[in-house]
């Protein structure tokens, strides 16, 4: 009798599990999605992977450390460490240095551009427009500042440069006030 009940139960749960596995199937690896959401999406490849998503996949499969993303900086490392329950580690200097300051965008000097389309092809977010032997231009609102297009990729020396975005009243930032004087406490 007991065997019969247990077999029956096993059968019912087996069917239920099988059904739910199909019904609530999760497409892709949710951890990759979550890591990818924390990465800055600069697509700069400074981490050693071709883009943010491949890097997220590498972290998820433990093929990469969490400190290889310079644009994400310390805040980014902290966010990924929190997600994965890992230790916060400082940014790996081999991958580059974090730039917390102004947003930089690529600017093409139309005087010197020879229309080679090299930058158009390499831009990971299609932010450069242009055709062969035509002047190219950067759509700055799409530019992630990945620096993939600047020399040595660009064959002209003074054509593409990284420039800080102009400060206006809409993107100007207040600075953190002076911290309390610790000595005065003692």
């Amino acid at each position, binding site marked *: 009798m007991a065997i019969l009940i247990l077999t029956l139960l096993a059968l019912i749960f087996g069917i239920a599990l099988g059904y739910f596995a199909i019904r609530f199937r999760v497409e892709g690896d949710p951890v990759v999605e979550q890591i*990818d959401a924390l*990465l*800055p*999406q*600069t*697509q700069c490849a400074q981490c050693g992977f071709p*883009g*943010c*998503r491949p890097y997220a996949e590498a972290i998820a499969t433990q093929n990469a450390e969490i400190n290889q993303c310079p644009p994400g900086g310390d*805040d980014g490392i902290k966010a990924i460490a929190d997600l994965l329950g890992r230790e916060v580690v400082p940014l790996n200097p081999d991958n580059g240095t974090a730039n917390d300051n102004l947003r930089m965008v690529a600017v093409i000097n139309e005087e010197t551009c020879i229309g080679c389309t090299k930058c158009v092809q390499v831009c*990971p*977010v*299609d*932010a450069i427009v242009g055709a062969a032997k035509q002047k190219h231009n950067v759509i700055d609102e*799409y530019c*992630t500042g990945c620096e993939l297009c600047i020399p040595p990729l660009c064959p002209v020396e003074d054509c593409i440069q990284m420039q800080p975005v102009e*400060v*206006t*009243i809409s*993107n*100007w*930032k*207040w*600075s*953190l*006030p*002076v*911290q*309390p*004087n610790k000595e*005065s*406490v003692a």
Partner: protein
Amino acid sequence: MKKLWTFKGGLKLPGFKKISNPASVNKIPIPDNIILPLRQHIGEPAEPIVDVGDQVYKGQPVAISKSLISASVHASTSGIVTDIGKYTIPHQSGVSEMCIVIKTDQKDQWHPNIESNLDPDNLDTEELCARIREAGIVGLGGAVFPSAVKLKATRQIDTLIINGAECEPYITCDDALMQNRADDVVQGILLLRRLLNPAECIIAIEDNKPQAIDALQVSIKKFKEKGIGSVAAIDVIPIPTIFPTGGEKQLIKVLTGKEVPRNGLPYEVGVICLNVGTSAAIRNAIYEGIPLVSRYVTVTGVMVQRPANFEVLIGTPVQDVIKAAGGEKSDRYEIIMGGPMMGQLLPHQQIPVVKATNCILVQDIKSENEANVMPCIRCGSCASACPMSLLPQQLYWYAKEKSFQKLQHYNLSDCIECGCCAVVCPSRIPLVQYFRFAKSEQREHEFKTKLSEQSRIRAQMRDFRLERIKREQQERKARRKAERLKKKAASDKASKPLADKELSAG
């Protein structure tokens, strides 16, 4: 007597209002140069319609609003446009924006199109709104929201509030306006009543301005005697002097007991709030055809020789205004545009007076001892002073940590930056500076999130495209190969009988 409510928190602050006598208003000499920023309002900048070298006359539009939320800019005196370029605007950041610079000719000649007696009583509401828009009128209480947009609100308005509270210390320009141009304010309100058709209409004035209250009551009585019956619906209501009772949300609470919802606008609770100066400016635009070219400005503070109220042309550099008030007393001073609580420190004196400028405060530089900041002792004084029922001490910690989620949870965006918390803080922590810092950090964070989301999609699309191109190339290759094979097979077939023949022949 109308029932009044109270708002939570707030402070009784020393007024310092007698320093700049609001009973009279002085003129100042026309400056050599006028600098007109193209964005003096909330919204998109106006677009210039004059060129360098053009002669312009007083009241002539020099930049017009093209988008919905924007306001035109007019030449405030006659002269020649010498430059259209970037100049420092009155903003804490000290950044530059596009401005039109006019070298004045001292003739102050009006543009011939400016005409009075436009028969205001026969204008329909559409036409009234259009003229208010053309005149470049914005809210003169400080928020500088284009008035025409505000007045087009379609919802039923129960209460029209005319804000004459002027709750910040030192500032008396609205007081001066009410005392000297009470009739204009009342006529403006009558126009607004025609536009909005509110059930009640209140002029709210803090009870520390009895002369202004009197002046408006006398004016209303005068209109009543003239047989203009509609003024009877206007109530002048004295309200207790508690900072920041002049804040829109606080004033609505005091007068109606209603609370404006978060991220909401007053018209959602059936209220529209306009400054007394806006009302007078609307009157001038409709009755005289005069656009917004000047405003009353208080020049005050311990470091200025002769504090007073002035009628200042929009675009006059601060330097010329202070000169008209006798200049500074010594060289240890700082200039604040606005009041001591919510004003902005100016980096230099070549910055122009704009539509929002109500006060130029020339202050003593704070001594170092006063600026000595101590750690937070969690006394909670800031929380009881906050007029928005926020918890400044919590926001302070989260602002330092940049915990955006926590800041949102504690409603940082509701902070009106009135400065009450910083005034009561026994540790002299500059709380408002922290909140401004946190707000701009949060804004940047939101921008970055948006940018990264956009980049993710764009990168994904690019990958899809590259893959598609690769796939198509392969397909083409395969197709060509198949075609080649087919051709070959066909030619083989054609040659096969031949081969067979050859074979048989062989």
